[in-house]
């Protein structure tokens, strides 16, 4: 009983920190119209998870290595070809998903796809919290620069902002947080954590501060309530996190509709 309670507390801690961080980082992805990039990029982690399972090394490292490599490829090809991030990620994510499904052992496939937070350890929790905090703090330092680049790249460059370098740092931070988020919701649903809380926040925000704070709060609420309900209902956490988030999103749609 004590063991179960301890696991639940650790799971909830991870859920809250990763939820806040993913929501905050995701707020930029939704503005950049890269929502599908976040979703598709997350699937690239599957082959990394598969290698981790097969060769018995931490799954986070496998996922992050693949996400990191994919982010660099996306950034570089985007710079060279001027193709949108969505086209490039779209071209590579189905391939990665197919390879991953072929090599992940069948017994582990469900866990990799939809997450399983019941096996977290204290070390997992500490690593996830530290990564979430670092990702968020670094994103805060480049938040305004990225937004200015979205408003007008020329305007940003004329102010001395290195737009390409800032975009690369952002993609790397997203890779980090997606790699951590896989533990909670799995590789198939982790895109949700960076998209839906921010989309919900956008429905009820007219300034950046409110938007970014609400994105983080909605991310935390979705993850927390999803993980908590999964322990009571004895169901997988991933789908329940998604359902919690969708309820918040629906509520914000209603709120927006009422104010029109």
């Amino acid at each position, binding site marked *: 009983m004590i063991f179960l309670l301890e696991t639940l507390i650790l799971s909830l801690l991870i859920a809250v920190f990763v939820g806040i961080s993913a929501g905050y980082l995701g707020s930029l992805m939704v*503005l950049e*119209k890269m929502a599908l990039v976040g979703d598709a990029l997350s699937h690239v982690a599957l082959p990394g998870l598969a290698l981790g399972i097969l060769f018995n090394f931490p799954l986070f490292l496998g996922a992050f290595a693949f996400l990191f490599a994919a982010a660099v490829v996306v950034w570089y090809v985007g710079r060279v070809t001027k193709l949108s991030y969505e086209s490039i990620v779209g071209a590579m994510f189905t391939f990665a998903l197919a390879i991953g499904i072929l090599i992940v052992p069948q017994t582990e496939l469900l866990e990799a796809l939809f997450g399983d937070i019941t096996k977290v350890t204290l070390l997992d929790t500490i690593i996830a919290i530290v990564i979430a905090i670092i990702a968020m703090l670094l994103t805060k330092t480049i938040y*305004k620069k990225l*937004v*200015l680049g*979205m*408003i*007008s790249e*020329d*305007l940003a*460059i*004329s*102010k001395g902002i290195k737009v390409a370098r800032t975009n690369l740092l952002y993609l790397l931070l997203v890779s980090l947080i997606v790699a951590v988020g896989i533990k909670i919701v799995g590789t198939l649903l982790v895109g949700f954590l960076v998209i839906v809380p921010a989309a919900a926040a*956008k429905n009820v*925000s*007219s*300034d*950046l*501060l*409110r*938007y970014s704070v609400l994105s983080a709060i909605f991310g935390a609420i979705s993850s927390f309530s999803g993980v908590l309900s999964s322990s009571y209902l004895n169901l997988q956490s991933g789908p329940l996190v998604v359902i919690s988030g969708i309820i918040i999103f629906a509520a914000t749609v209603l709120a927006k509709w009422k104010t029109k």
Partner: protein
Amino acid sequence: MDNSNEYALRVSNLSVKLQNQTILENISFKLEKGTALAVVGPNAAGKTVLFKVLLNLLPHEGKVEWQQKVRIGYVPQNISVSDIPISVREFLSFGNGLNIAAHLSSVKLDDKNVLDKSLGVLSGGQLRRVLIAWALIDNPNVLLFDEPTTGVDLDSEEPIYRMLNELKKKEKITILLITHDIHIVREYSDRLLALNKCITFFGDSKEIMNPSIQKIIYGETVCAGTQA
């Protein structure tokens, strides 16, 4: 005698090629401090590319020399704000964040409520004024405007140019603006630079009313040669 201190900008033998296509060729001109230069020409003449080169945003051949201690304020032709929840206050605080209300007042946006409005809900005229306020925030001595009244209704256009003219006189700012409007060129600029890959005319902006000059600017391209 050529006194270089008089000039805000000296461009010599400037050429730009993008993806193996010549966009600008052998552009040379000088602009005195405190003057307003109107850049005109048909579509795809290289006007926006010229501005980007002046801002050092594009690779080029030739020389671009700004006055010493130049501080450039820039307003691009297109910005995307409709989908970004950002207030006027937040946008203007991207600069040094000082005296935001005073800068809005200098562009005749005195309504305090504007500060908390989202950029996406502003009218075309209000948005352009906010952009001009943004360009003014770091106390520039040169302003570059790429079609400053894009998306602005006709009634709001004239006040914006009047305001720019007042700023030029009051702050002794050098202004470069791209425009298609002959009336604006005549009323609110001192010098005229007509482009069509090369310079087709450079001189007094009042010349824009001269039918033979109009024919040169908007008719068949005849390069005017170097102006420096």
